[in-house]
């Protein structure tokens, strides 16, 4: 009981620093329920099995640890060259002046801060709902905390095929900032949207994205989490996927003191696909955790998890990936791979792949490896005249390629690739 009461004390200390945002009736109700969930679940501690590899202390602390501002030098902001509707958030506060006019055919965009007054009926079925459903079988208290207190975010309803991506650009501009954003996306039948996210939210950030992908809809999500070395962030993506729908999410992370990215997907309609991928590159004080939970509820769905990490100078990578196949989900095709490439002997990769299957006619595979750059391949490149550093960079890109292949749009993929090449150039020794 000592643990439980310590947890309650910690949770109460965190809650004491937060104030419920103003909202209309429906949102107020959803937030009150979320607050109850936080109180019941309690914020996690190191003893929680789900946080065995990642210490949640800095994410749960009442006051956010400071993070120095970071100058990316001459590197252009992510997705800068892509024609998009860009919405800018500075330390979690929407900057309308720096943002594009959110007008896009087939797409309704509303800010969460205004949603209480404007009664957005569709959001009632999404906001806090997918998060709440995602609390079992494993609790995700930071997501509930976010539902209860995030004052800002974007609510996007897509009724057609969006002609260009919607981009959320986060700018970290104060050393002591502590921000939460809560986004909801609803794709109606047959709709299609690409959502981009870039940058670190704040010194400490908490982002929840709830995505409801109706039958036959297609959702592409690409994130570049920024290079700020001292920022900390917990993100959750909750997705509900309808029949014959597609959900794809890719995340690039390059340095960050603490990143925990949870993705929780439920394939509820038959013949749907969910692909979740990530490339994380860390040098030094870098802790990156991908925690993925994919549930196959409906039959004949396909899911892929492809996570690659490149680590050096004591960087730490974590992967917790699960495929749960429910009884009715026959003909499931599940695939999971998590791999780490160690550029020295000082880094660490902790992986916990899990399969839990209750249907008898399924195909599921998973694999996890940790290794160094293949010496034979490196020699092959060098024997062709490619200098050592360049050969190593090529081998790292070769290692990451399988994750990058999960990005459908070649222009976006090229942007991500260029960022990785830049990182390799700066961090090669």
């Amino acid at each position, binding site marked *: 009981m000592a643990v439980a009461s310590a947890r309650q004390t910690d949770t109460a200390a965190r809650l004491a620093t937060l104030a419920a945002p103003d909202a209309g009736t429906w949102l107020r109700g959803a937030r009150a329920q979320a607050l109850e969930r936080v109180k019941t679940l309690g914020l996690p501690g190191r003893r929680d099995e789900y946080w065995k590899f990642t210490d949640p202390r800095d994410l749960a602390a009442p006051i956010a640890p400071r993070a120095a501002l970071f100058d990316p030098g001459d590197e252009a902001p992510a997705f800068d060259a892509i024609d998009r509707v860009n919405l800018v958030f500075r330390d979690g506060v929407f900057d309308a002046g720096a943002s594009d006019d959110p007008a896009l055919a087939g797409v309704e965009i509303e800010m969460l801060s205004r949603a209480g007054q404007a009664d957005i009926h569709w959001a009632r079925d999404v906001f806090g709902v997918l998060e709440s459903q995602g609390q079992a079988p494993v609790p995700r208290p930071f997501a509930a905390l976010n539902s209860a207190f995030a004052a800002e975010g974007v609510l996007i309803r897509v009724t057609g095929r969006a002609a260009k991506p919607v981009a959320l650009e986060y700018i970290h501009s104060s050393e002591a900032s502590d921000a939460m954003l809560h986004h909801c996306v609803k794709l109606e039948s047959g709709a299609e949207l690409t959502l981009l996210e870039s940058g670190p939210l704040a010194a400490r950030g908490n982002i929840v994205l709830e995505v409801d992908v109706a039958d036959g809809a297609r959702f592409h999500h690409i994130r570049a989490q920024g290079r700020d070395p001292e920022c900390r962030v917990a993100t959750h993506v909750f997705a509900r996927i309808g029949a014959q729908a597609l959900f794809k999410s890719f995340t690039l992370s390059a340095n960050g003191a603490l990143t925990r990215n949870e993705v929780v997907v439920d394939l509820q309609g038959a013949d749907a696909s969910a692909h979740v991928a990530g490339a994380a590159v860390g040098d030094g004080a870098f802790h990156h955790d991908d925690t993925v939970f994919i549930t196959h509820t409906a039959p004949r769905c396909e899911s892929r998890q492809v996570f690659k990490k490149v680590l050096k100078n004591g960087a730490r990578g974590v992967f917790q990936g699960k495929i749960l196949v429910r009884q009715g989900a026959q003909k499931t095709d599940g695939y999971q791979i998590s791999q780490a490439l160690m550029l020295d002997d000082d880094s660490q990769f902790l992986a916990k792949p899990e399969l839990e299957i209750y249907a008898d006619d399924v195909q599921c595979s998973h694999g996890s490896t940790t290794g160094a750059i293949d010496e034979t391949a490196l020699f092959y490149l*060098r*024997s062709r005249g*490619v200098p050592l550093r*360049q050969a190593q960079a*090529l081998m790292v890109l070769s290692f990451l390629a399988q994750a990058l*292949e999960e990005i459908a749009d070649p222009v976006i993929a090229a942007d991500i690739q260029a960022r990785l090449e830049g990182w390799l150039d700066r961090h090669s020794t």
Partner: protein
Amino acid sequence: MLEIKNLHAELEEDSEVKILRGLDLSIKAGTVHAIMGPNGSGKSTLSYVLSGRGGYKVTAGSATLDGVDLLAMEPEERAAAGLFLAFQYPVEIPGVGNMTFLRTAVNAQRKARGQAEMSAAEFLKAVRVKAKELQIDAEMLKRPVNVGFSGGEKKRNEILQMAMLEPKMCILDETDSGLDVDAMKLVADGVNALRDAGRSFLVITHYQRLLDHIVPDVVHIMSNGRMIRTGGAELALEVERNGYADLKAEVA
């Protein structure tokens, strides 16, 4: 061109395993030498030691290319100096396009030699001509390096790299292994097309049949880390008829 004197090498991690034991070899510009020998005689090790692969320790002797000490250089420097090794087992590199790889290699060497880099257009034009001669189609150029290539495709890809890099000293390590007669002929034609007064070849092979297509000027028989016989093309035929046992017995 290539001068090897009294070369001794052993495994780096086990100095008891001595592979090259006083090997001498002198290759003049414009000539084709072949090395034949039984398994374990040190043929592949010789190619690795010359090209700078890790895992071997040279304990005595020298190897120079046009007077430059090969053994003191990094593998990429040896390549820039004009040495090329066609691998027995070309390496697959997923995620790196064959074309990107080739262009990176060509331009890295040009840069090392103080030459201007080739533009994408120039490179594409040059590679197309050479690929066509080796019956390498555009699809193969686009695919990741050697991934999903058949044995013959991999070996043709090695020759394509050789043709693009234009080395002066080419070592072919069992290029015929795993090839059928047609594929071998195609590879041999590719090699013959590169024969030139300023370019030399060292062809390592188990079997005489490759030497029907790439006719050598000099044939060496290697055993136990040294050359035990040197002769003309007819020596390869003698081996084909009688095997290596007689030759080894002669020396012993």
